């Protein structure tokens, strides 16, 4: 089932590569078909998902659902032992919601790809490859496999930004690439270290199995990452160091302040569909990695670092919001708002409470839908007049009432209006942070100031761009080019708005599916 989900896009990509060019018009339809099938499959998975405590997953391999485990690489390395890499997939309450989100965001991104007019034969296979990689990351339970998917995401993104992006696309692409590569190179070191520390109790071989890495009993005596041996590297505990390295690798993706400056540049230069995927899914890979890997494998080091992670979360919330307030480019403003909103994820995770972790998970799903919506909306306006400066527009709601209605929904949902998903997410992240024994109360209160600032930058933008008398930089000419939302665009926007609303009113749709896993997770990290 999961393999089908992962490799369907690859199959479609191959199909596109071998089809003759006269079929170029249907590439987007193939791509759209793939995402619809994926959506239906993941909806099916969602509906049949076992949310009982006996299927919580986390550190218990037997409790994962839809597992697929095949021996993949077995290489005799002589004295070091046998290299054991499995093709091991499975999902629990922490990963299942992301499957649904991925399918939805990919669907919207595909619709946004209608604007892409050049070099389609390269574009769609790369796009589908990215799709495979993202879903693979969320399903992989073998660290090696995870790493492969994780790195596989970089490649298509680099080319998608570098080839279809804006004026400074190469600068942005390189910056993005270097930042994330910096993170993943060191991650590989930790993976190797973990490999040599952990053995599979059944076969006695070293293993990349993530779930086995979560159990301290599987660590070799005296190995570098063994909790009992408490080895030191460069003067600090090796486990703490490894945690920090992994955390930095994933946190670059989230992103955190001060490792975030790739994000605004990448967004501003990326074409709309890539922005949607970047904000909607890639950032979530970071948050997911922190939960699944950093926290689950190094819970002791994680708890030790709670204070700092909470602080980073709070600073990201405030700093991102302040930066958003200062922007004059609409897309950059939204990019910074992503930094701010993802700060809630860190704050929630750092709390190590069920409320906080649930809030963080909720925020990732909610932000996935909302940021996709926001970037799609920016793309709509950019596509019409090739301008995104806030000051170039005024009184848009007279001119484009439906578009403005969607903007209002997206803005108010993002600023945490109750009734939309972000409210539940932010409220519980903050409640978790407040009640946490690892974080001081002022962090939650500081974080809540971010909610105020988000109201400020979103409403200010609304006031400047959408209200007042119509006044456009492009004058009369723009009045005709700025047509209202068309059917294709509404098809993309409606499901996102509906999801945000649905999750805002019925939080149990998501909480029920992940409660067991969140409880097990908190149990694992707090002991």
């Amino acid at each position, binding site marked *: 089932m999961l393999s089908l989900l992962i490799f369907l896009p690859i199959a479609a990509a191959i199909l596109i590569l071998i089809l003759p060019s006269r079929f170029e018009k249907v590439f987007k339809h193939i791509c759209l078909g793939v995402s619809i099938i994926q959506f239906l499959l993941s909806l099916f998975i969602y509906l049949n998902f076992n949310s009982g405590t006996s299927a919580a997953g986390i550190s218990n391999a037997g409790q994962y659902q839809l597992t697929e485990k095949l021996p993949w690489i077995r290489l005799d390395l002589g004295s070091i032992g046998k290299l054991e890499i499995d093709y091991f997939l499975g999902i629990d309450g922490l990963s299942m919601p992301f499957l649904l989100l991925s399918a939805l965001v990919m669907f919207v991104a595909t619709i946004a790809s209608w604007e892409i007019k050049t070099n389609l034969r390269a574009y769609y296979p790369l796009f589908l490859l990215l799709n495979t990689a993202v879903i693979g990351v969320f399903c992989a339970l073998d660290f090696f496999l995870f790493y492969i998917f994780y790195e596989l995401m970089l490649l298509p993104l680099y080319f998608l930004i570098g080839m279809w992006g804006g004026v400074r696309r190469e600068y942005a692409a390189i910056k993005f690439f270097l930042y994330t590569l910096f993170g993943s190179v060191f991650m590989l070191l930790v993976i190797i270290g973990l490999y040599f520390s952990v053995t599979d109790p059944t076969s006695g071989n070293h293993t990349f199995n993530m779930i086995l890495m979560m159990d301290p009993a599987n660590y070799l005596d005296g190995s570098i990452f063994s909790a009992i041996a408490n080895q030191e590297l460069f003067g600090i505990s090796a486990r703490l160091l490894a945690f920090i390295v992994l955390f930095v690798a994933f946190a670059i993706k989230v992103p955190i302040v001060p490792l975030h*400056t790739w994000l605004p540049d990448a967004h501003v230069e990326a074409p709309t569909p890539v922005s949607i995927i970047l904000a909607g899914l890639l950032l979530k890979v970071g948050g997911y990695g922190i939960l699944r890997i950093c926290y689950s494998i190094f819970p002791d080091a994680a708890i030790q670092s709670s204070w700092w992670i909470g602080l980073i979360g709070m600073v990201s919330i405030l*700093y991102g919001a302040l930066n958003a307030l200062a922007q004059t480019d609409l897309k950059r403003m939204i990019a910074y708002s992503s930094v701010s909103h993802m700060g809630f994820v860190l704050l929630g995770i750092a709390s190590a409470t069920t*409320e906080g972790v649930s809030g963080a998970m909720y925020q990732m799903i909610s932000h996935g839908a909302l940021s996709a919506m926001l970037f799609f909306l920016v793309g709509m306006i950019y596509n019409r007049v090739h301008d995104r400066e806030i000051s170039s527009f005024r009184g848009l709601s007279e001119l484009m009432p439906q578009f403005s209605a969607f903007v209002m929904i997206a803005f108010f949902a993002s600023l945490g209006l109750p009734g939309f998903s972000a409210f539940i997410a932010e*409220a519980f992240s903050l409640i978790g942070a407040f009640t946490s024994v690892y974080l001081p109360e002022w962090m939650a209160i500081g974080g809540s100031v971010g*909610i105020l600032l988000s109201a400020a930058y979103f409403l200010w933008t609304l*006031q400047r761009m959408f209200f007042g008398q119509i006044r456009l930089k492009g004058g009369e000419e723009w009045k005709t080019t700025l047509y209202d939302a068309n059917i294709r665009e509404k098809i993309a926007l409606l499901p996102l708005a509906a999801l945000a609303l649905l999750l805002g009113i019925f939080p149990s749709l998501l909480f029920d599916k992940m409660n067991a896993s969140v409880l097990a997770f908190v149990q694992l990290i707090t002991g």
Partner: protein
Amino acid sequence: MPVSDIQIFLVLPVVVLPLISFLFIFAGKKLNTENLALFHISVSFLLSLYLFSAIWDKQTFHIQWSWFSVGGTEFKAGILLNNLSVLMMVLVSGIATLVHVYSRVYMKGDPNIHKYWAYLGLFCFSMLSLVISDSLLLIYLFWELVGFSSYLLIGFWYTRDSAARASKKAFIMNRIGDLGFLTGIMIIYQQFHTLDLTLLFAENGFMQTSFIQNAMWVSDTSGMPEIWLTIAGAVFFLGAMAKSAQFPLHTWLPDAMEGPTSVSSLIHAATMVAAGVFLIARIYPVFNPQVLNMMVITGTITAFMAATIALTQNDIKRILAYSTISQLGFMIMALGIGAYSESIFHLSTHAFFKCLLFLAAGAVIHEMHHHRDKLGLDFDFQDIRRMGGLRKRMPLACISMCIASAALIGLPLTSGFLSKDAMLIKTFEWASEQVGILKIVPYLMLLSSALTAFYISRLIFKVFFAKPDVISSPVISAAKDAPKQMTYVLLILAFLSTFLPFSLNPLSYEVSWLWSGFRSVESTQAGFYHQLIPVIVNAISMLLIILAYLMYVNGKYSRLASGEGLLFRVSSGEWYLNQFYSFTFVKSVEKLAELSWRIDRYVIDSIVLSTAAVVRNISDFSRWTDKNIVDGAVNGSGAMVSKAGSIFRMLQSGRLQHYLLSILLILLTFLILTFFI
């Protein structure tokens, strides 16, 4: 007491019907929207009346459903009906119904009229749900939604820049209060692990059984340092302050007058702004004496400040807005001194007469605006200096407005007489037990009450009795009373502003059913203040009304009214608070935002870029060695090796990632060598 199931089906439509009008219109229905909206809200009102009769002083109705659970904690959603909520329900739906009727004429011809009905529906839904919610989380949810619908309605004429700005300001200032509310929720949740109102605040609820011991605030499940109890009260109060426009968070309300007058009447005078008072009343046990004293001080300052500002404003709606702020200050102060029932009583009477004041003002504005545009004149149609002499032209508006003003002043035979004097009496009783600065509270309130008499008389006399202005006199002579539908609404509200709906005895609030519905303890010191206060208040008021008449109708003492002097300027400048906020807060946040953007650009980014530059230099260097040293050696070797070398060179094409890879391999070797071999 067990309640039959049938009532659930009566309660839900009360809130859901207005929502249905919103959804219908939002989904695209544009015809007959005014009838749809009116029908829904009237049914809602009738059901509220029925529920009121079933529940008032008889029983409490509480029903809950599981909403969602987080981890192991269940969050419930439910409906809690007691005296307070059914009273608010009737108030909100009743006034909303009247405003709907009024708006049919008032808003006629507006191109976006269907949106108006939709937003009103959303507002009624949120407000009614707010008053029946049974948990803090739900109240918070609807609390923000009323703020949102108020945002939509203030900015209803969004093409006006001032309206767009005012709506933003209202939402953001309310958000400041919301942060307080949210913080309060966090504290309560940490302490009691539930947000259910009944569990928390009922008799012997968690709140009552928690206690202070060794500077710790202890509950069944956990404990926090004592200070958090005070903080919890203070932050909840902060929430109430923003919504009920208390000093220093009141500046959004006068600006909110950018919305249609009917909206100002419903939302920014009668119902939504009372939500803060409602919240305090709903969670009353959470407030400890320190916080209650904060309320007294805030309420007193607010009442006084707003009354002084109202003295000199010339925009008719702005005067009424400041009057609302001042009256809300009275209510908050009353809650602070423990005069719970008096405060709620005043909330109810104020809702009617302030609603009437706004609607009557709306009728006047409507006429002024209409005839001004017809005659092609140019002046501010909301400026009371341009009005005058409207008594003969609009007699019904004049009469109803006079009744409402009398209620506001607290003249006998009006509802305001009962509720306002009740509060003042309580204040004097309370102050007799206080020491220090709090002793001056009742005198300041007395002063505010006197100022009230003056500013509202000034308004009435200027609008209805004074000689019309030269510029606007053609407009005045063309004006006439509003169409029937509007006038009926005014007359109904005028009746509701008299003592009759509230008490059989026009002179004693103690026989009022409404007041007794919330009374918890017998008043002990009745007697002395009871006789004296009403007499004093009314004597002062009468004097000031006469003074206002002489000043504004007969034109005497013109030096006083001329606008000279520092005090006058402070008052007409609204205490310069807007300028102060814009200078201190808005500007500094903007500066901070600018600064963090610079840091991002010039500090963080430049660190990243210079790191990249260093790496690039290293790789340039290694390319150089590659070419000149390694390659040289390779070339010196045999052809086979040379070929391998060229493959190697191809790999090392100067691409950064390859160099990082080689660094990685070296580190890897190092790691393996150190630990495994």
